């Protein structure tokens, strides 16, 4: 029932043609590559259009009044100053619009919390200032550091890489179509794992775990950044996720199992 309502609501939204229109440009939220990012994008756009609608009404009245009722045009002030009926109307209408918005929002929020039936679990730990990815069932664990050379940051004359500040040495690798559950925690301060194209943002909090999930349908390389101020180099701990076909993922896992010890591990102890 729930699923059905959800599909229906979003099918309707898609029909309104708000899907890919602005998604490609950098002026809007990316439409993304997961069901979650599509849902969030649609919610975002419908709220935006509703706001625009209200804005048009309110600002039309405002600008009309500014134009029409100026003293220099000989306007004389009217005398009315209250009307309970009008007040009730403009309390009720926004309220009903908000109820209308709350329904799809409630449904999507439920979906964010649904981490069940995952195919793969990755634990992500935030460090000052890098990410650590651990594939719990595969026993793979590695750090992911910023790969942009420091000189490109310090020297304005140097040409910058295409993915300046959005490139890492070891990206997180996940298989396409699989539901990946991510567990987040932190080794020091609060970080936040944010990947816009997946519609995922979740805080990494020291001492506690958080979870979210990803299911990507298009292979590719996706980039994000830390979303919570975590000290001086908060802007320098990007996130790169490589989504690959399942066979390729299996090969990657096998390769990693082989030279597990060779992978930079950071802490001497483990």
């Amino acid at each position: 029932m729930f699923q059905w309502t959800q599909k229906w609501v979003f099918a309707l939204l898609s029909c309104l043609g708000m899907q890919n229109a602005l998604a490609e440009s950098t002026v809007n939220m990316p439409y993304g590559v997961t069901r979650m990012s599509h849902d969030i994008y649609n919610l975002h756009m419908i709220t935006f259009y509703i706001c625009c609608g209200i804005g048009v009404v309110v600002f039309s009245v405002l600008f009309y009044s500014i134009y029409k009722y100026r003293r220099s045009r000989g306007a004389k002030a009217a005398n009315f100053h209250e009307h309970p009926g009008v007040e009730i109307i403009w309390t009720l209408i926004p309220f009903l619009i908000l109820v209308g918005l709350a329904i799809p929002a409630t449904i999507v929020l439920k979906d964010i919390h649904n981490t069940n039936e995952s195919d793969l679990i990755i634990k992500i730990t935030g460090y000052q200032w890098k990410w650590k990815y651990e594939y719990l069932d595969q026993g793979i664990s590695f750090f992911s550091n910023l790969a942009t050379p420091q000189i490109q940051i310090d020297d304005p004359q140097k040409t910058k890489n295409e993915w300046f500040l959005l490139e890492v040495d070891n990206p997180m690798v996940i298989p396409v179509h699989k539901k990946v559950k991510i567990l987040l925690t932190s080794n020091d301060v609060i970080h936040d794992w944010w990947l816009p194209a997946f519609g995922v943002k979740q805080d990494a909090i020291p001492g506690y775990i958080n979870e979210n999930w990803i299911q990507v349908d298009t292979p590719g390389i996706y980039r994000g950044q830390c979303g919570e101020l975590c000290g001086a180099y908060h802007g320098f701990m990007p996130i790169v996720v490589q989504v690959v076909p399942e066979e390729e993922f299996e090969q990657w896992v096998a390769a990693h199992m082989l030279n597990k010890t060779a992978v930079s591990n950071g802490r001497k102890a483990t």
Partner: protein
Amino acid sequence: MNLTDDMATAHDHADHGPAKGLKRWLFTTNHKDIGTLYLLLSLTMFFVAGIMALVVRIELFEPGKVWVTPEFFNQMTTLHGLIMVFGVIMPAMAGFANWMIPMMVGAPDMALPRLNNWSFWLLPFAFLLLSLPLLRELVGMASHLIGLNLFAGAGAAPDYGWTFYAPLSTTYGPDSTDYMIFAIHMMGISSILAAINIVVTIFNMRAPGMTWMRLPMFVWGWLVTAFLLLAVMPVLAGCVTMMLMDRHFHTAFFEAAGGGDPILFQHIFWFFGHPEVYILILPGFGIISEVVQTFSRKRLFGYSFMVAATITIAFLGYIVWMHHMFTTGAPYAAQLFFMYATMLIAVPTGVKVFNWVTTIFKGELTFETPMLFALGFLVMFTIGGFSGVMLAIAPADYQYRGSYFVVAHFHYVLVSGSLFAIFAGVYFWLPKWTGHMYNETLGKWHFWLSAISMNLTFFPMHFVGLAGMPRRIPDYALQFTNFNQIATVGAVIFGLSQLLFLAIVIRSCQKHKAGVNEHLPDNVWDGGRSLEWTRLPTPVPYHTFETVPEIGPNDTH
């Protein structure tokens, strides 16, 4: 302090004018002097924090390091935020409260004039304390240039954002955090004393006939704000005290190692922080109500609904704090509750906007500078309100939070909201205070430059935020370059335009000091409805309403 004595002073000074020189300002208990002091402090801090904003914007002019280190960048964003909130908006609003509330309710002064002096003079020292680590650092840098090495091992200024989340500010915070904690304590005490004073004045000093429903909207806005202050400033004080204990006395309120929880910090902080947002805007709503009805020459539409909406906003403001924490991980049910409550705030806020617009509808409008700022407020605050509604939608908020979209949102609410309201208020009452009409042409230039550059600065931030640019980063990926450059250009123009404002204000004060009398009418804008316009001469004398006025039904509306 003997409170009974304190109350008596209101009449002690009845017969003589202001004292001379520095003593006048240090020991004054006159509400107009104290109001002026608050406004001057606010003006000074406005430029200090504004320069910090420009440091930030210039660093963000292009990808790669432009001129400051990431460490210094974070100190700039942090102090810019803290000072703008506590040192600019709040003191400016308190300045208006001091100047206008006694006159608007028909009282000779605030109820507790000596306490009033105290609550002001705490503030300069609070901000000195807050900026001390930065000053130390700047002096250190300067001395380095001339070969000296002053303050070499001194730590950084606060650098964890104005929200100072634990454990970044506790376990990982620089030494200067303690300066910030004590500075916040002092500001907190100052705000609480001011709030008590305002509540007592409004409750007990109203002239006979000045009933609750005849109070000007500005007074209502401040009354509600004062109650918000009394309720949440102690919580902030408690919060920073816990930080202090965690840092020095081995408690573990926010440290998981000792059984605490960093998320508890965010709950406490935002329990203060969300109402704080309304503390910053409700007095502004009041100013806008006064200005809009004056320049429409028409009674404020739906007065009683405006009052109700203000109270509703304040009430709802207490139960929505967790909307700042949607991504920290919370049970579904809790997120739903806070999402619904947050969305609900749009209703009373909408009511206010609709009432203002209806007040303008069929009015008799003129467009002097105060009205221009009020109209700018109406349009751009509403835009900030729209992005607020978008942020309330929890699943979408997952993507907005921590991005430049949020930065755009709260600058629309605070710059074109609170700050424009303050500008409107200054232009509105400056002639009444000084007896001198500011230069209208310059005022209009100030408005248009501010409004255009404000949009130039903050509108592109919506775009980069949505496209994935996190806030509080000193450097960014290449695709965000264009919009950041526009924002920087806008910010520089905005900053420079404020020099016009400074010039206008200084000019008025000079003329006032020189005793130039322009014989402005009492009701300067011929549409003012509250007592300062209808019952007092221009410029207002040092002491007003020594004899208690009788207020009738026609007096305020």
